[in-house]
């Protein structure tokens, strides 16, 4: 399978961002002056290119490059985890529904349709208000809380769990619809009929034949959901309903950049936005390269337009 240049650009961009996120503890070690936790009020609003602060500092003197690197970790982690949950739940829901057919199919897909007609941000706000972090901290058992580093004075990683839950609860619908359509499309194909004739059960059919066949579509869908999730996380954090100040993320940077903007510091807002845009752009390029691939005819666009001379 040859890849289009758009796909290659997208994959390269995404790989660079992922590498940045993975290497954060080495690129910006805790304790260094550019770590997001180091506040230096004597060096606030330094412009881009200041020695020691490549991308400048924000209104609290925090290094923007350091924040962006650590922010990549949180934003991409939320994106990947939420997409993983959404794709698994959605694919199972959609393919199970398509395989069942009849009344079960109708009810299951109508539920998806109904939820899809609520704008995702509104659903996100409602869910986030309902699954509040303090309430969750009261419900979860002690070992889980300990694993998430929840203490009396800090929620630790719990906001991450809440945001991932809420975002995936909003994004699994698209995955369910896609899986539904995919399974419906291949359900009548001969190899499926042959497998059924050989006595393969529903779960075996799903796991061994239908899902592997749809894997390219599922992978691309997962990538699209990662970008959706990154956008949603940044929107929530921007509103102040996301990860909170304890976990630096691109959306959180944008939220705190609102104060910096008033002081004339535009780079504090531009940088995290560019990182979010780069992530979404990379995924869109991958998606465009692989999903929108239509069988091209030999006499392509260029030939036709050349003939008119």
């Amino acid at each position, binding site marked *: 399978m040859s890849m289009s240049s758009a796909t290659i650009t997208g994959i390269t961009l995404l790989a660079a961002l992922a590498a940045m996120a993975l290497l954060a503890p080495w690129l910006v070690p805790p304790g260094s002056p550019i770590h997001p936790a180091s506040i230096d009020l004597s060096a606030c609003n330094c412009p881009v290119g200041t020695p020691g602060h490549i991308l400048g500092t924000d209104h609290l003197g925090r290094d923007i490059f350091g924040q962006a690197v650590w922010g990549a970790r949180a934003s991409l982690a939320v994106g990947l985890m939420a997409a993983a949950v959404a794709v698994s739940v959605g694919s199972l829901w959609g393919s199970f529904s398509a395989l069942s057919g009849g009344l079960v199919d109708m009810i299951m897909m109508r539920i*998806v349709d109904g939820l*899809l007609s609520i704008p995702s941000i509104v659903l996100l706000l409602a*869910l986030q*208000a309902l699954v509040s972090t303090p309430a969750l901290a009261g419900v979860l058992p002690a070992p889980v809380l300990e694993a998430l580093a929840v203490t009396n004075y800090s929620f630790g990683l719990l906001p991450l769990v809440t945001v991932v839950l809420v975002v995936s609860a909003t994004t699994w619908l698209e995955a369910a619809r896609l899986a539904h359509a995919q399974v419906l499309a291949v359900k009548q194909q001969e190899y499926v009929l042959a497998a059924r004739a050989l006595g393969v059960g529903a779960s075996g059919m799903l796991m061994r034949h239908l899902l592997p066949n749809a894997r390219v579509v599922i992978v691309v869908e997962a990538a699209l959901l990662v970008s959706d999730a990154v*956008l949603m996380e940044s929107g929530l954090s921007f509103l102040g309903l996301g990860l909170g100040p304890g976990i630096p993320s691109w959306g959180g940077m944008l939220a705190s950049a609102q104060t910096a*903007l008033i002081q004339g510091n535009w780079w504090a807002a531009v940088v995290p936005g560019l990182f979010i845009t780069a992530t*979404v*752009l990379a995924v869109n390029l991958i998606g465009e390269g692989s999903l929108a691939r239509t069988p091209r*005819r030999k006499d392509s666009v260029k030939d036709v337009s050349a003939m008119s001379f």
Partner: protein
Amino acid sequence: MTGLILRRCISAVPLIFLVSVFAFALIRLVPGDPVDVLLGASEKDLSPEQVAALRHEMGLDQPPVKQYLAWLAGFWGEGELGRSYRDGRPVLAVIGERLPATVALVGTSLVLAGTLGIAFGLAMAWAATGRTVSYWSPILRMAALFLYSAPGFWLASIAIFCVGRWLPWLPISGLNDPGQAPTLASVAQHVLLPASILSLRRAAKLALFIRAMVLEEMSRDYVLIALAKGLSWSAVLARHILRNSLLPVVALLGLSLPALLGGSVLIETVFAWPGMGRLAVEAAFGRNYPLLLTLVVVYGAMVVVSTLIADLLYSLVDPRLRETQAISGLSGSPAASGMAS
């Protein structure tokens, strides 16, 4: 045609019903129940009898189906769940105050998205046909992809910064000058910036779509024939290709409405636009569940209705669709595709 309208309208009703069931189910998902939320920490100051009395007053001791029906009735402010926790007013009245601002914002952006998108798309298609200098095509395409990928609220804060610095006469927040009675001219001036930012993502999507459509149409046989019989390139483009490519564009434009509705929530917040989106954010912050969940229903209903309108308009434009399934078929609105749209 009447039959079609009727059938589509009837198929929209169960969806709105479903949305209301979800919203109701969400209320029930609150840890504890609405009484705990309403009372908060003061619950321990009340005797169990008092709490039980409140629970009874709110109808929470009834079976779920009865509660659901009471909640529906409560939309008009009869039950406790139909009242905003903040000021005790009926939620529908609170939402009704904010509705016109959202409609004005989304309506203006739809017009802007259509105009900008089609103009930009045609420019991109023209550049892609190889009639201009070759570097224009990738530049325009990257610009469109960038605008399509950038989060709206980010573009909005950058735009506020730039406008505040270089165009100080253009208002950057609110619906009206403070302390003045709203006039049409002043509201029009205020809506300009938020509506343009909101329309950018949709315009970019529309432009990319038009480009793809035109390129697709160009590889068809009828274009070859038109060229072979000696028509000039521009005539083929204007008379054949565009005419065939623009039909789906009408559909996409109609389906932008739900997406714009979703995108307006954050844009309204950034620009302090007094619409439903900002109300939803305020409600989420204040854990104002009755208001928030009624907003879920109202937004859902608006999406269903606008998808319905888009469907009907499209079948009006394309007679082939009148008898068969419409493009979106109501199932699955595009509102879910990205919040920053």
